[in-house]
């Protein structure tokens, strides 16, 4: 029993990272129907910004998080303006290839820089490691911080999208871009803000991930991004609570499956996804839109 509980804690920890990244995917998809394949790389860049912030400026955990989120948020806005905006009215598939191109660039440009390079780097420990015993399970300070921080960010995001004016604007643009523009909403700005938030969340996820699994390299975003994307679809792509739910499910399932067999853990997320899509084609919380005949 305690082992299950222990695994659950690990699962929620991993799941909360997936959830943070999945949120970015789902927000971007919701607003411009684009699967941003480069999203996982925002996570990686966030981790590296954190790495350099500590190496050069010796900043603490919170400042590193904030700095990383702001910097990568701006990178996200830039990427959208440069690579995705020109293709907004074009076939969605072109945006997809562009996203792949952006991802290739974001991975390989830092790789070519001498300061970074292909070799993995150890991420510095920013949170003192203290283990607590609780109900027969061990929970570390790092895990507590991670889970709390992730859920706080998700809660803030939820409040932002449901209670604020900017959140309403984002919803309007995601329903109907052109109608929103006619209502006087600045669509470009709204999309930029969405990208900023999504990328910032990914960056936060990157810092948190690096805090738990301290080796970072330029390709780390790839696999995580794919899993987070799966989580977003599992919960219902475009639905924010869905991304959170999907992320946690993915994390817990992966940890439980890995404890049985490490290779099993790799594929389990996809198996769950396919099973869920068979019964709920739009994801757990998704709404399937029927084509009008």
């Amino acid at each position, binding site marked *: 029993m305690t082992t299950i509980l222990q695994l659950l804690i690990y699962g929620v920890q991993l799941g909360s990272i997936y959830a943070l990244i999945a949120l970015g995917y789902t927000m971007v998809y919701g607003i411009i129907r684009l699967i941003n394949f480069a999203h996982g790389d925002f996570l990686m860049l966030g981790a590296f910004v954190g790495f350099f912030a500590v190496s050069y400026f010796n900043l603490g955990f919170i400042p590193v998080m904030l700095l990383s989120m702001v910097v990568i948020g701006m990178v996200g806005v830039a990427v959208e303006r440069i690579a995705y905006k020109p293709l907004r009215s074009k076939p969605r598939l*072109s945006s997809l290839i562009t996203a792949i*191109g952006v991802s290739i*660039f974001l991975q*390989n*440009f830092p790789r*070519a820089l001498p300061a970074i390079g292909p070799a993995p780097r150890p991420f510095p420990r920013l949170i003192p490691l203290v283990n607590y015993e609780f109900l027969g399970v061990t929970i570390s300070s790092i895990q507590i911080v991670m889970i709390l921080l992730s859920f706080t960010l998700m809660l803030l995001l939820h409040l932002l999208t449901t209670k604020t004016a900017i959140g309403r604007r984002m919803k309007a643009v995601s329903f109907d871009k052109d109608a929103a523009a006619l209502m006087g909403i600045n669509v470009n700005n709204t999309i930029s803000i969405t990208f900023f938030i999504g990328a910032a969340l990914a960056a936060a996820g990157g810092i948190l991930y690096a805090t738990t699994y301290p080796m970072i390299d330029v390709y780390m975003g790839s696999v995580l991004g794919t899993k987070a994307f799966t989580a977003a679809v599992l919960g219902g792509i475009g639905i924010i609570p869905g991304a959170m739910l999907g992320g946690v499910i993915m994390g817990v399932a992966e940890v439980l499956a890995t404890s049985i067999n490490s290779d099993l853990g790799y594929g389990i997320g*996809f198996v769950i996804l*396919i099973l869920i899509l068979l019964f709920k084609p*739009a994801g757990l919380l998704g709404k399937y839109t029927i084509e009008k005949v």
Partner: protein
Amino acid sequence: MKLFKGKMTYVFIIGLYIILEILNKTGIINSYMMQIVKFAGINIIMTVSLNIINGFTGQFSIGHAGFMAVGAYSSAVITTVLFKTINWPVYMQIPMFLLSLLVGGLVASFIGFLIGIPTLKLKGDYLAIVTLGFGEIVRAIIRLIQPVGGARGLSAIPQYTNLFWVFVFTFLAIYASRNFVNSSFGRACISIRENEIAAETMGIDTTKYKILSFTFASFMAGVAGGLYGHLLMYLQPDMFSFVKSTDYLVFLYAGGMSSISGSIVSALILTALPEFLRFMSEWRMALYGVLLVILMIKRPNGLYGGKEFKFLQIKNNKRMLETEQH
């Protein structure tokens, strides 16, 4: 059996083959470059087959490397694990090689058939993620199968793939695809892409044709996988990750959807491109990414969107003279 229009096409293909062989034998093109040529052929088969699903039938399949993996491993199992053909006399090896390719294609097409089934309920992005998931699941499963080497990989695969076979199968793939498209089977698939509901009301069983397109395309991908394995002489599941699938997506979209010619050209160029950029060493992949973005912004429909080379078109010239053009 009417083949390509014009004898020139055959002269060109056979001539090209002969020239390449001569250049290789005389050392002008070294074996490394020859391998690039063979990869290009395999990539053409993969891209053309992906075009059947994504371009002509309008589905959204993004795990194509999974079919390649299934074909590669199945065919390698025939020649190494099951029959240990490496010590056989040459005249026995070739039929076994061809058999292994057939097996690779069939097993891959069976998997394609299985994947065709979920497509019935899913559309667009959901279909995409399922196909991506299947690709990754294939990879995960192969890692677990110890008799084929699991995560360590399968080695000592005999190198049966030579330029001749690459030419033969690339030609067959292009030919079969072109004929498929210009038949009622292909037209049914195209109607599904254009307007699925209208297609249904015209008596087309859209379910059957979606599955058909997956099965046909995955067969070709399986054969390409078999060629791939018997060229590299080594297979490892991580070679067939989502990254490999994205390669073929890029080839396909850059070349232009629903254009077989576009698929051929872009597979050729994009297989060779990283080699030409080699001088840039670490910067070449970054540049590749930038080039992709620029290409998509400038030409969102790819290089050849919807158009075909002369030798691939099937036209009734007499009739066309009597009609309006544009």
